[in-house]
């Protein structure tokens, strides 16, 4: 028996014991996303030991890895063969495990152009509450046999069980990449992003902060060149360009250093929102970050951000307003970090949808041992 099967056996034993004794488990990889979602208690189930790339064939565009495999290891293997994870999962300031990446289901700046984490999930192996190993999806691009449980598990925050293995679609790295920068107001940038998104351009990123719009083009060298000629803008060298997109992807941009950060997901055509502070806009307008009560900020002057009056009450009012405005725009608002509202960190769901969550949770995890409350309080 190799070491990975003994690690898996141990995980199954821990789950069986927790299930039988009704003890709760807190699933964790590298802990880069400990802040994310609701705070939870429970016995730590460290998933890092179940690691390793199981299968990677570049010509199949698929990589399969155990949950504890560090993202850095996967990205290095892909890079070696000229491929990458096109949804650009955030690593934050550490090295997340691939299981954590998929359980959180977060995507980076390429999300609107290449797809979200869930779009790249081909298959998932689940260790459920009964300690059964269940396989959903597979290693092929097209698969409609049975309900799409593998995508259901992407972004499930571990509340349905332990993701023990994932198969992800990978893509060839773009042959060429060029970042352009434009001086623009938020309003102008949103209009430009939407106009450009409706044209056959090789866009792979569109963001705005502090009077500057950043646009990334990826693809064949000829296509990138032609698009640059069409759009104009200031060419940004590869090093500062990579630095900028990585700051958005991994949240090393100074806006994220603030005490309270709200993430608004809205239709990309939503005009600038009537919230205090200068947002960071990503995903061509579909993602708006607002920060309050912060630390020193290199790009945004304190007064401009509008948190000078500070105080917890103030934050909560801003949060309430963020929720209202996001809802009115047809989107949602999430308290990314900092002090959340009483209604919870995540945007509340429709009652009928919450009821579906309860019934699914009940079926997957009848004794509620996995990450209880991480996604929805009491679930």
């Amino acid at each position, binding site marked *: 028996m190799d070491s990975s099967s003994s690690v898996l056996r141990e995980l199954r034993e821990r789950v069986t014991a927790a299930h039988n004794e009704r003890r709760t488990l807190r699933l964790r990889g590298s802990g880069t996303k400990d802040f994310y979602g609701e705070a939870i208690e429970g016995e730590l189930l460290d998933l890092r030991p179940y690691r390793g790339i199981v299968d990677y064939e570049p010509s199949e565009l698929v990589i399969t890895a155990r949950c504890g495999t560090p993202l850095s290891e996967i990205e290095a293997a892909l890079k070696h063969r000229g491929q990458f994870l096109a949804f650009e999962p955030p690593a934050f300031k550490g090295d997340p495990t691939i299981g954590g990446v998929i359980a959180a289901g977060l995507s980076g700046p390429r999300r609107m152009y290449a797809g979200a984490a869930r779009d790249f999930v081909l298959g998932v192996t689940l260790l459920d509450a009964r300690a059964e190993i269940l396989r959903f999806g597979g290693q092929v691009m097209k698969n409609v046999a049975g309900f799409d449980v593998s995508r259901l598990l992407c972004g499930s925050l571990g509340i349905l069980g332990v993701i023990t293995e994932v198969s992800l679609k990978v893509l060839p790295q773009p042959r060429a990449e060029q970042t352009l920068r434009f001086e623009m107001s938020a309003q102008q940038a949103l209009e430009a992003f939407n106009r450009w998104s409706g044209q056959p351009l090789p866009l792979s990123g569109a963001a705005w902060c502090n009077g500057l719009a950043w646009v990334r083009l990826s693809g064949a060298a000829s296509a990138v060149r032609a698009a640059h000629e069409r759009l104009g803008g200031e060419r940004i060298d590869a090093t500062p360009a990579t630095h900028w997109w990585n700051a958005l992807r991994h949240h090393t941009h100074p806006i994220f250093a603030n005490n309270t950060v709200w993430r608004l*997901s809205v239709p990309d055509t939503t005009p600038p929102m009537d919230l205090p502070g200068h947002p960071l806009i990503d995903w061509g307008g579909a993602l708006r970050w607002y920060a309050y009560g912060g630390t020193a900020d290199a790009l945004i002057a304190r007064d401009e951000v509008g948190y000078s009056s500070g105080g917890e009450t103030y934050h909560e009012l801003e949060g309430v307003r963020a929720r209202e405005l996001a809802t009115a725009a047809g989107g949602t608002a999430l308290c990314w970090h900092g002090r959340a509202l009483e209604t919870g960190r995540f945007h509340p769901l429709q009652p009928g949808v919450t009821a579906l969550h309860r019934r699914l949770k009940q079926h997957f995890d009848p004794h509620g041992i996995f990450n209880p409350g991480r996604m929805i309080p009491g679930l």
Partner: protein
Amino acid sequence: MTQNEVATALRHVVPAEIILSRDEELHPYECDGLSVFRQKPMLVVLPRTEDEVRQVLITCRRLEVPVVARGAGTGLSGGATPHKSGVLLSMARLNKIVEIDPVARIARLQPGVRNLKVSEAAAPHGLFYAPDPSSQIACSIGGNVAENSGGVHCLKYGLTVHNVLGIRGLTIDGELIELGGRAPDHPGLDLLSLVIGSEGLLMVVTEVTVKLIPRPQLARVVMASFADVRKAGDAVASIIAAGIIPAGLEMMDRKATAAVEPFVQAGYDLSAEAILLAESDGTPEEVADQIAEIESVLQAAGATAMVVSSSEAERLRFWSGRKNAFPAAGRVSPDYYCMDGTIPRKNLGPMLEAIEDMEERYSLRCMNVFHAGDGNLHPLILFDANTPGEWERADKFGAEILELCVRLGGTITGEHGVGIEKINSMCVQFSDAERAMFFGVKAAFDATGLLNPGKAIPTLARCAEYGKMHVHAGQLAHPDLPRF
């Protein structure tokens, strides 16, 4: 419940003229695109509004009458085969394009809108809806959601699940549920992905919001000939390995080209054992670069001849053969049975050789068309239902192909769905515990089990029964044959 009792109850809540009950009215609904399975429904209801759908569902729920939702009825797995004591809910009259927003690049659609109509309506804005199943002239968007339909361009543009932003629908209890929407990454579990491809077992979709994408400026296709199928299969892997993602990458064997050529005069090389169609789209500059690259990879992979489309008319002509492969099969044979397995691309060669061997053993011909870039196979088994025993042999032939797909690391269905057709093969792909989980998902949405019963997920008892007749004394049929 008699037909009369159910019809009377429904007439209390919806107009009588949307309820069909006479034999001759029910007849057109007795099968979908898989016509070997036929069943007359108890009643057909043709709602025109979401509220009428709700009234029908609430009534059926109260009377415990099964409900099978149906789009255009083009499905190939019998997913819309009626239930003999149930209501067939045709969504065909809910066929309005609610909204096209060219700035936001979205379309809001009622479920009965035809797939191709979406792209036609978006065309004046330079946009299109990417998934293009071969039935796109007729199939409906609601049916596409139910089946997670693909098409010839999903290698680059994805399946239905990648192109639908949100859905609105009703549970069997008549509760309105909205999933996803115009903003990305909704909080909570990804129920949108779960419902897409759920074959009408979880809810009835009443509105779909889809993503529209900019139409590429130009598309050109390379048609390459190969002297043997294995080489053609390897060429597919070589293209992907070279870092190229063509907009479409399709393969046809000689039997398929021979069947379609007299039918559509696509200009196929009939001396080739297999042909590949590789399409590139984008700006004129990138298409020129990519076509040159594809040509050099195919040359190195042993292509015996290559032609590049020089006009849009020629490009469409090259595709016409591929898109007409199914009707062509119907032309050369009284009946055909279309399979839909997917395998890792590297196994295309061994799979084709195995199918050749099966043709001999079952004494039936099989022509092969593949979405080669996705590893999605559509072997078309030719048979004559009027010859005793031929359908049974075709059925076994198909099941053996699907089992081989699972053994080769693939799946029994890439895009057509399980429906009623592949229900036994589901026992091969999934364990009892996995199927139990599927039933749990079903129960979370539909505790009564009234939505499309008997489809998609086989019961444990059914699999036990299938296992008994299928695996005799622990051995698969033909234990002497090599398995890949």
